């Protein structure tokens, strides 16, 4: 089975700046693939090359097993694309825009209307808005229309550039739910700098930093592999002496206070410890707490989030990853 998306040595320079540098990706569908990076990491430049709006300086890319350079229209018939800030003709209504897109894909008027209505509903756009001029729509509504237009042709591959960036929290939940359900049918390649969103819906992720690929792996295994073991504990009492002792302990790599604890628990203090060896820490930490005359309320190994992975990778690799980090 051919890959849904593949790049080899994909590079794009703007003058001296290498916005995307030797990017190798291989995305197998169906499913949701997360393309993660801080602002300016090169995500949008990569996506614009994938959809043919920018020419690579060097390297190759294939979408749905085809090289877009050989037959761009054939590839685009099976491709859906949502840009970061979708823009529409302000004089058109949402329904009219989708009918126009259907027309571009060669759908009959009847077929396009049915599909347009289905997508407008599925993307959470209220019926009264369908026939109102898009010029008066909110950013969130335009984002939803952008997602609808990307799906008009029932694409095999959908490329979404920051699909939830303009949405409020409820809208994000809706759209991520939609993305998740679509991921069971087609391949979605979704960029974002919002780690929680990627973590929620993406089974596989690539992290980009300064145009370079830091990591490309299944989200779950990445979280297991790339983050040092971490313990969270809550103690009662004056923890200043304990914190000092822990900071000096050889098995502790990094210590920080947890900010969000139950506000009614006045003397409860949360600590998060990145440790060198989890087993050793699980034995040593309760002992240290008792030695300092404090009460241990809870102790649990922390579940690493994608945010931890991201920060860990970016922190450790300001000028690019080491071989160990990328798992090479």
């Amino acid at each position, binding site marked *: 089975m051919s890959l849904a998306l593949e790049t080899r040595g994909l590079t794009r320079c703007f003058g001296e700046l290498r916005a995307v540098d030797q990017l190798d990706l291989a995305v197998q569908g169906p499913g949701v693939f997360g393309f993660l990076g801080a602002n300016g990491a090169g995500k949008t430049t990569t996506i*614009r090359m994938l959809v043919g709006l920018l020419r690579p300086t060097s390297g190759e890319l294939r979408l749905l097993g085809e090289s877009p350079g050989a037959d761009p*229209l054939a590839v685009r018939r099976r491709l859906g694309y949502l840009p970061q800030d979708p823009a529409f*003709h302000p*004089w*058109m209504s949402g329904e009219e825009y989708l009918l126009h897109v259907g027309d571009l*894909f060669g759908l009959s008027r009847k077929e396009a209307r049915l599909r347009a209505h289905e997508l407008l509903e599925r993307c959470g756009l209220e019926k009264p808005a369908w026939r109102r001029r898009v010029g008066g729509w909110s950013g969130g509504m335009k984002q939803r229309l952008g997602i609808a*237009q990307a799906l008009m042709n029932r694409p095999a591959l959908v490329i979404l550039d920051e699909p939830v960036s303009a949405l409020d929290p409820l809208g994000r939940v809706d759209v991520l739910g939609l993305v998740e359900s679509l991921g069971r049918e087609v391949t979605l390649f979704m960029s974002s700098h919002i780690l929680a969103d990627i973590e929620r819906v993406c089974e596989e992720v690539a992290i980009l930093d300064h145009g370079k690929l830091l990591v490309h792996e299944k989200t779950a295994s990445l979280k297991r592999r790339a983050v040092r073991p971490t313990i969270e504990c809550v103690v009662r009492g004056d923890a200043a002496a304990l914190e000092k002792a822990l900071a000096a302990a050889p098995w502790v790599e990094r210590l920080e206070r947890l900010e969000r604890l139950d506000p009614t628990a006045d003397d409860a203090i949360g600590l998060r410890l990145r440790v060198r060896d989890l087993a050793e820490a699980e034995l040593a930490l309760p002992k240290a707490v008792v030695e300092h005359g404090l009460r241990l309320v809870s102790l649990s190994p922390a579940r690493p989030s994608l945010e931890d992975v991201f920060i860990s990778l970016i922190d450790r690799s300001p000028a690019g990853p080491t071989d160990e980090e990328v798992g090479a």
Partner: protein
Amino acid sequence: MTGFLPLCRKELLEQLRTHRLLVLAVAFVLVGLGSPLLAKATPDLVSRFAEDDLGGMELVIVKEPGVREALFQYHKNFAMLPLLVILLNVGAIASEKSRRIAPMALVKPVSRDAYLLAKAAVPALLTLGGTLLSASGCLLYTTALFGEVDPAGFAVANALLLLVLLFYVALALFGSVVAPGVASAAGVGIGGFALISLAGAIPGLGDYTPAGLLSGVADLILGRATPHLAAAALVTGLATAALLVVAGRVLTRQEL
């Protein structure tokens, strides 16, 4: 030319919704109907305005206006339409690029040539319709007010005027493709119009420019010799095609 017809349908709808079609129709109708009326009324208007200012002297209109004057007036008024055509079309592509609307269309199964040609075909069609409307109005009123018009000569004059307008549509689209924004596209379009008007004044060479073609049509209407008319029409037609071809090449290579 994949996507050409759907894009044409969208362009037509846009011309209608953004009232550009209405502006164009009103302008053409005013030129067509207003020109013979203005020619007819000119002697009266001149006499009335002059009555108080001649210090008792009598104003004598040596020649009463006729078909030729009406058609000449039509030509003079028509010669203002290139600027309108430029202003209406200069943002067609530039604004879609700067507002990021064009990339949304161009990642669909649409060739960039089809995109450009739809942008050219619809204004060309509307300009043709406008010219027919204008010419019909002028023919009707001139016949009613002054007498019969030579239909063949009038048809040739209008065909050449249409060719001049189509050249300026192509110039506006060229500006719209090569410029990064609407303001700079307007600069290319209006600057190009000014340069071509200046070039038309160059002795010898000017006769073969679109501005020279416009002057040639005036000579045709006035019954003067028009030795360079065919060559000027050929040059204008070729320049129109060349502008579109170059714009197409530039657009195909452009990164959006």
